């Protein structure tokens, strides 16, 4: 039987995440994996801007809070001078795929030996639901009130596909957090990424498809169904790169 207990890295504070938001599940998974690997004390969370920044209240482990989009740059500085620490950044899609696109692609291309956990909910949650680079075609947001129109805003960016074109990254994978199966796969993927980092294999990237009940204007349960019918068909879950498999 599995033992159910509070993860050691989740601080005892009331949650400010909206009801049904999968950010809290994502941070829980990360914390569980770090506990399992005995890396809780050695880990350093690079906390970015957006709803992910709420982690400065809930993350009980060591962290550095950084500027919008710059987590992969700050993590580069951290890891280069303290390679023994397990370093990961937790970034949302506006942060990582828009303002931080140069930083994420360049850190991945250098093969920096840290892990980026990418929470993709296709909107800017913290600022009130504007269009993100990952917003789906036709999706209504506060800056695309008639739905995202690719003729003026382009198409949703697929970060796993982009990063997996690079030679350096060791592990690139996408999981959806809207089902027990997806959650278990995500947990295994995060663990794999951290293990590869501990072995010095280089850059690891785990994308987590999440939700935003508030800005999608859906009940938490409906967001999970929406993900099945809309998000997952476009952002295909799977392992895009695995240095251990590719080496075989």
């Amino acid at each position, binding site marked *: 039987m599995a033992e159910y207990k509070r993860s050691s890295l989740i601080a005892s504070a009331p949650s400010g995440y909206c009801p049904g938001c999968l950010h809290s599940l994502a941070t829980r998974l990360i914390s569980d994996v770090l506990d399992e690997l005995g890396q809780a004390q050695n880990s350093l969370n690079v906390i970015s801007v957006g709803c992910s*920044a709420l982690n400065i209240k809930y993350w009980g482990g060591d962290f550095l809070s950084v500027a919008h989009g710059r987590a992969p740059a*700050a993590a580069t500085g951290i890891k280069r*001078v303290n390679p023994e620490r397990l370093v990961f950044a937790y970034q949302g899609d506006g942060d990582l795929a828009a303002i931080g696109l140069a930083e994420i692609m360049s850190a991945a291309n250098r093969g920096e030996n840290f892990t980026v956990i990418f929470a993709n909910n296709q909107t800017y949650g913290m600022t009130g639901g504007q269009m993100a680079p990952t917003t789906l075609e036709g999706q209504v947001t506060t800056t695309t009130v008639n739905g995202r129109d690719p003729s003026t805003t382009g198409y949703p960016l697929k970060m796993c596909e982009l990063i997996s074109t690079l030679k350096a990254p060791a592990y690139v994978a996408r999981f959806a957090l809207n089902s027990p199966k997806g959650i278990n796969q995500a947990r295994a993927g995060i663990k794999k990424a951290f293990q590869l980092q501990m072995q010095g294999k280089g850059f690891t990237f785990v994308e987590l498809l999440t939700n935003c009940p508030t800005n999608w204007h859906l009940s938490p349960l409906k967001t999970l169904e929406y993900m099945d019918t809309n998000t997952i068909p476009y952002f295909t879950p799977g392992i895009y790169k695995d240095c251990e498999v590719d080496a075989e």
Partner: protein
Amino acid sequence: MGDKKFMKGNNAIAEAAVRAGCRFFAGYPITPQNEIPEYLSWRLPEVGGAFVQGESEVASINMVYGAAAMGTRALTSSSGPGISLKAEGISYLAAAALPAVIVNISRGGPGLGSIQPAQSDYLQATKALGHGGFHAMVFAPNSAQEAVDLVYNAWDYAERDRNPVFILMDGCLGNIMEEVDLPPMKELNDEDIPGWALTRRNDPERDWQLSLTPIYTEEMLEGLNAMAGEMYKSWETEDVKYEEFMLDDAEYVVVAYGIASRVSKEAILKLREQGYKVGLIRPITLFPFPKKVIHDLDYSKVKGIIDVEMTLPAQMHDDIALQVLERCPIYEYGRSGGCLLDDDGVYEALLDIVSGGENNG
């Protein structure tokens, strides 16, 4: 002592940084400071440090932010346009109370400007290195040797204050070849890492959470800003540096820093030979500005202040005027856009002023 070398200014400050214990550099190529990253790309690995050529100035300053958070002495360098891009990260360094050193080998501006030397970034350096109303100490050397000495001590100030330190030079000083007496290597150990750093090397047994953030509650932020204000005031009493040159009997006082002060000295010596009583105040710290020495001049004797800068319009003028308080005229002379100050030009401009002044002011 006695490690004398003939070095280019940029290389000299890179070596001084290494000897000061700097073990991380991130930067992006921009003229006229390229020798700094080039030198450190091979020099830092020799001493167990790390060099990263960033994808941008924005990324580079944020790499420095990360390394500084680990208690590592970290450096970045750039020039005008690149410093504008670093403004975000410099503001975050100040917000998160992180020490780091930023070097600006300035060039003509605004915009892309020119790659030739200029002193066009005084206002940016002293008034607003980024958003939010913070300050950094700003040192302005006027020789390769002084640059070495100031860079060598820069992290001591940065760590004392937990605040970034800024070195403002220009393309002349960055590229000048001069003899420098290099200081000894500071040997920093894990025990020397500040207690707030996010490393665990300095205290492996520590079992409590370590965190650094530029995010605070409104009340905390207000309190921290007020504390920063007190710190800036303390700099004015504790840390002001300037040089006086032939000031005692001066009727005209040139105020000039960096390369402009060197050219001005030559002109002053020539004017003195002709009996003109001209002196110089050279700010070494631009922030804190040497207010008192300018304020306390004997204005019954001083007939005019001459602000000489390699930029147009003069940017130091208001800081000087706040101390002169209309007790004498303030004249300006400068070149700009990458056009250099030269001995003849400064001499003739000063001569015109001190021999009558009717054509200026």
